[in-house]
């Protein structure tokens, strides 16, 4: 049998063929282009149209970027150098970038102070944002950072931030010692102790205005992108805890607390931000006696924080509402009291659901800080629209300046958005 069979088979392969590359048309770039760009007549038309649009765009923007003039004293010199060719006049950015970053009145000798504050901001914010990567000990620095940043940016005696910090420390100490009696005793005791510390500290700072003092910079002199960053960072970090409190208050069963929260949220959400800013700038000036120096930046921070916290409260309320009732009941069944239940069970889940909404508010808020240019504060957009565009040297340069401003905002907002997506993936605990 075997013989006959052996004769009927002419050849039998006893080794494996080496793997051959796929045919030219089914591999690599060609295949990718065919399957993704030219997979049908409709997609082919779309591809060609897009390529044409891309070409038009690059043909317009390319020379503008490549021929750009980076070294000129004013717009007329720019135009002379270009000789009628298409090209951007980037010399305006080369000359005025410190003004766009720091504002036009911040003393140039001490630009290093806000710069250091900015770098330290990254250090301080890292352990908060990436708690798994950085050691928890760095959080102590994060807690100190606001006081340090105030000292660096505004200057003045170091006693002011030190006493502010001391007030918080004393308040927390009293709270920690008294909280075993009841939460309310601890809270109000802590607040009273902190206020008392600040009150006494006020006399000390008044007596020693030169103690370890850095050169003082008035709020009016702070501007540029620095102002946007200050307003954005401070208001987002303040409005998040405030928003959580408001959201919880709105769900409370105590009518007074609930009423206050509802009225606050609905009132703030019903008023445009620009109106609140006008109130901060103009109306308060009428109510306060002349000569009282209630810092304009503080007024604006309060208004923007109120505005953002109302929106964040609504976002978090959505997160709270999305949790099944069983979670609340389970917390009660475990015998947890209200703060424990919220802290350990409800809020971690509700906040996780709310992340996209909160980030949305944060990005919107950061961009809304440019509205302060309308109340005569020189943030980045205010600097561009006011002093720079109106100077006889640079009157008529639009695209370069607004493009630069847009780029700065894009970098920050895109960063925030990417971080939030990363955070969502980190916190994902369900199976998908």
């Amino acid at each position: 049998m075997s013989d006959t069979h052996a004769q009927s088979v002419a050849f039998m392969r006893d080794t494996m063929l080496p793997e051959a590359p796929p045919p030219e048309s089914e591999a690599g770039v060609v295949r990718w282009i065919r399957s993704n760009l030219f997979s049908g007549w409709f997609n082919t038309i779309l591809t060609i149209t897009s390529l044409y649009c891309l070409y038009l765009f690059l043909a317009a923007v390319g020379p503008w970027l490549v021929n750009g003039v980076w070294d000129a004293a004013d717009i007329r010199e720019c135009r002379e150098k270009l000789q009628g060719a298409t090209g951007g006049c980037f010399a305006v950015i080369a000359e005025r970038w410190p003004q766009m970053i720091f504002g036009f009145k911040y003393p140039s000798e001490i630009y290093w102070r806000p710069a250091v504050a900015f770098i330290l901001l990254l250090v301080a914010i890292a352990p908060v944002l990436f708690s798994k990567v950085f050691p928890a000990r760095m959080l102590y620095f994060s807690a100190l950072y606001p006081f340090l940043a105030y000292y660096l940016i505004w200057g003045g005696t170091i006693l002011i931030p030190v006493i502010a910090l001391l007030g918080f420390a004393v308040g927390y100490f009293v709270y920690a010692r008294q909280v075993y009696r009841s939460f309310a005793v601890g809270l109000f005791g802590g607040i009273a102790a902190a206020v008392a510390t600040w009150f006494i500290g006020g006399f000390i700072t008044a007596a020693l205005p030169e103690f370890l003092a850095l050169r003082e910079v008035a709020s009016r002199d702070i501007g540029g992108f620095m102002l946007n960053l200050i307003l954005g960072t401070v208001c987002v970090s303040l409005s998040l805890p405030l928003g959580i409190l408001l959201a919880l208050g709105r769900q409370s069963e105590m009518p007074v607390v609930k009423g206050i929260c509802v009225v606050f949220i609905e009132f703030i959400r019903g008023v445009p931000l620009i109106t609140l800013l006008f109130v901060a700038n103009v109306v308060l000036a009428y109510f306060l006696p002349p000569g009282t120096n209630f810092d304009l930046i503080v007024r604006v921070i309060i208004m923007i924080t109120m505005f953002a916290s109302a929106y964040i409260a609504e976002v978090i309320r959505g997160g709270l509402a999305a949790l099944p009732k069983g979670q609340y009941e389970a917390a009660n069944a475990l015998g947890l009291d209200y703060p424990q239940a919220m802290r350990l069970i409800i809020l971690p889940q509700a906040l996780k659901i709310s992340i996209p909404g909160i980030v949305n508010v944060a990005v919107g808020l950061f961009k809304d800080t440019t509205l302060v240019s309308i109340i005569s504060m020189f943030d980045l957009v205010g600097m561009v629209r006011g002093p720079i565009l109106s100077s006889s040297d640079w009157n008529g340069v639009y695209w370069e300046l607004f493009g630069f401003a847009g780029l700065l905002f894009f970098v920050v907002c895109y960063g925030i958005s990417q971080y939030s997506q990363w955070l969502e993936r980190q916190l994902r605990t369900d199976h998908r």
Partner: protein
Amino acid sequence: MKKTVFLGALTISGLLAGAAAAATLDDVKARGKLNCGVTTGLTGFSEPDASGRWEGLDAAVCRAVAAAVLSDADAVEFVPLTAKTRFTSLASGEIDMMARVTTWTLSRDTDLKFDFVGINYYDGQGFIVPKALGVTSAKDLDGATVCIQTGTTTELNLADFFRANNISYEPVPVETDDEAAQQYLAGACDTYTTDASGLAATRAGFPTPADHVVLPEIISKEPLGPLVRHGDNDWADIVRWSLNALIAAEEYGVTQANVEDKAASSGTNPEVNRLLGTEGELGAMMGLDKDWAKRAIAASGNYGEIFERNLGVNTPIGLARGLNAQWTNGGLLYSPPFR
């Protein structure tokens, strides 16, 4: 209860405001700085340069007042104000005076409770057209498309002018000056109309300014001047006569360069002697010393020098003196006598 507290607070702040307003000069001296309201940036009138120093016609008026009152032309805190916040800032006492290209009108002088102390620039609404259009007079603009900022008095003036001359036009509404310049350059309208000084400044930013002309017709009155709050006449006098000193200095040939010499000893012109304090006691009548006008002039020169440096024909803006020449040269600048 709440209401009474609120009203009480209002009353107290009102009283304090009144008390503070009554002695602006003392406030300024105690503070050591003059708070002067300016624009957030307007070419030739008030614009900060690359090092953050304010330059321009309005800024020079602020400096002159500071020099007269505080003996230091740089003791000025320039407070940039938008059109929306300017009047409340002055009324609330945040600033001592305002030199912010503000048109002197009856309602602002009376209803808003301000005092205009004089006029440092006579402006008026004009038209800009491309030279290629071949138009030499605004009356030739029959049927033209006109770029016009909406919601401004210029819009109303435009309608009046065309109706009075019985010619037609087609408005192209724009929001801001920048937008108007873009539209005009893109050919969306034949002509753009706004204040003549603004037209000149806008034209300076064009790629080819020489291809555009501002037509001779001025169709409205826009007298721009510094102003102070009602109720402190002593302070208003100081600001008024500081401005007048700049104007009179040009008339009598006192310049930044020769003011020191002329003030050193009394000369042949008694008016100059009184102005510079070598004769008489004019400064003391205002609560200032006798050198006040000398310092005001030394700060940035007389009116003519200030004008030429910031707006004049040798600057990119290139404005002729026109109405803003001395009365002796056919203009409207006319300082009352120093006597």
